[in-house]
């Protein structure tokens, strides 16, 4: 009948990863504003690859890892397997990512190898930790199925990255490095980030929206379609492009079911969406163009559609990373960071004093504004890439930078509660006696 909470605060693991990630996002946007050709030029250049790793590893992976250590024990209803492994991962990640980015920028593969080894070891510990947390004991839900599948994809993507690096160092030969790079990118984007996002949303969104999962069958269906997509994308990229349209179709179906499930949960919620949830749900607006363009690109690669313009891969990357994933992850960050601070500072005082609510920790107007400005900045960036316009990319990066500055101001406000506690004693004389019956 009763059980204890599986989720003690992991603030000193999650928070440093979050701050590391937010700083990388801010840095990436400043860099993009100064050098818009990162998105409008050809993608196979040292600086573009360095930029992709600032966004992918420095920003997205840091936030996903930080969220995982706090949220996955909640989703799995099990305590985190090992805090020590998580701390080692934190150190390896924070040390390894800047080295990798520096190595890519200056095309020094030996530096990339050093940083990459640290990052790889860190993620090996992450995968072990998350899998072991899910298994004690295993509850088979759409979230656990999706997280396990995303961990397999991540392992594959890391293996491919190690293979490409070994080839660059001359330790092994690779016939088609661009195909391998494509397999690495799609395994990370669709197989890890999008699948992980969908899987975790099936636990977190109902929890925040105060509704049950509207259809477990639909949620499992989306996870299965993502898995089929990744299984076909990889051989399609490496050897058999004819498989790519089918892979893209499955990815689109997975994204479609994920959107329908999220929209159904939102429409049934008794709650008005707050700024964090609005920002999170803005990710859904980008899914249709991501799915349609991925399908078109797959048809191109298989030889069934004409090549209309260059930069379609970059456009898909921009919509998926700056649109879907950034909205979803910043939205979740806007919910998780106040929770971490609240749990650390005020949870022990609940019932002893009048403590602030989570909404009292944030600037609600800033978060509401961000729910519009972040997606708008994502659209501007995508327009800039689609029209190959450096000026439009700079406008998008500028709006994004302003949004991230506002987000960081809100973050500082939340963190101020760590050193400036704002609870008040209960005013017991005001405790009323007002006979209102509880529903049976």
């Amino acid at each position, binding site marked *: 009948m009763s059980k204890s909470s599986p989720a003690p605060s992991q603030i000193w693991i999650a928070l440093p990863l979050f701050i590391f990630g937010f700083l990388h996002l801010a840095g990436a946007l400043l860099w993009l504003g100064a050098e818009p050709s990162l998105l409008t030029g050809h993608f196979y250049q040292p600086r573009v690859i360095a930029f992709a790793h600032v966004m992918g590893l420095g920003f997205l992976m840091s936030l996903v890892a930080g969220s995982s250590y706090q949220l996955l024990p909640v989703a799995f*209803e099990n305590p985190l397997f090992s805090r020590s492994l998580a701390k080692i991962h934190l150190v390896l990640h924070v040390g390894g990512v800047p080295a990798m980015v520096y190595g890519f920028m200056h095309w020094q593969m030996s530096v990339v190898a050093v940083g990459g080894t640290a990052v790889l070891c860190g993620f090996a510990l992450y995968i072990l930790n998350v899998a072991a947390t899910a298994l004690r004991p295993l509850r088979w839900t759409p979230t656990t199925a999706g997280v396990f599948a995303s961990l397999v994809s991540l392992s594959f993507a890391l293996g491919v990255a190690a293979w490409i690096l070994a080839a660059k160092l001359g330790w092994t030969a690779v016939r088609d490095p661009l195909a391998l790079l494509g397999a690495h990118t799609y395994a990370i984007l669709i197989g890890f980030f999008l699948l992980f996002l969908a899987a975790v949303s099936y*636990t977190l969104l109902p929890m925040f929206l105060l509704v049950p999962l509207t259809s477990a069958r639909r949620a499992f269906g989306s996870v299965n379609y993502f898995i089929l997509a990744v299984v076909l994308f990889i051989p399609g990229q490496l050897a058999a492009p004819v498989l790519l349209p089918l892979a893209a179709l499955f990815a689109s179906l997975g994204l479609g079911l994920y959107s329908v499930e999220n929209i159904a949960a939102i429409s049934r919620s008794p709650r008005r969406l707050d700024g964090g949830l609005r920002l999170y749900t803005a990710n859904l607006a980008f899914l249709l163009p991501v799915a349609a363009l991925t399908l078109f690109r797959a048809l191109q690669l298989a030889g069934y559609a004409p090549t209309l313009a260059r930069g379609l891969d970059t456009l898909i990357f921009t919509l998926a990373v700056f649109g879907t994933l950034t909205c979803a992850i910043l939205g979740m960050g806007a919910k998780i960071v106040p929770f971490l601070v609240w749990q650390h500072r005020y949870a022990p005082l609940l019932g002893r004093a009048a403590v602030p*609510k989570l909404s009292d920790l944030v600037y609600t107007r800033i978060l509401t504004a961000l729910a519009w400005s972040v997606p708008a900045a994502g659209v501007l960036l995508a327009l800039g890439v689609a029209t190959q316009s450096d000026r439009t990319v700079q406008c998008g990066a500028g709006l994004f930078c302003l949004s991230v500055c506002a987000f960081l101001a809100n973050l500082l406000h939340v963190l101020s509660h760590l050193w400036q506690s704002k609870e008040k004693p*209960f005013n017991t004389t005001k405790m009323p006696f007002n006979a209102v019956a509880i*529903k049976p």
Partner: protein
Amino acid sequence: MITSSLDDQAVIEHLRFLDDPEVGLNIVDLGMVRSVSHDDQGSVRVVITPTSPNCPMHDQIVEGARLMVERVPGVTAADIIVSFDPPWTPDWITPAGQEFLKNRL
């Protein structure tokens, strides 16, 4: 079972001072308090159903509820039971709670 010095309604009114920190609504209007009963020694038993089995705050809410119940005059002991059977449903939110949730950002 009911004594003259302790009233279940007083317990409920004290529990209205305990908010779910994420939602911002007190746990009574949120429909988390399922039953309140007491014996003639002043020992109170409250059954609480968190809004989700994954709720990361239910340990703190249970402890907070225990502390709030112990403030009620006449209470000698508070036993807070967490139950997920039946699971919480939005239908349990009071009309006042529904109004609050629709308007609050």
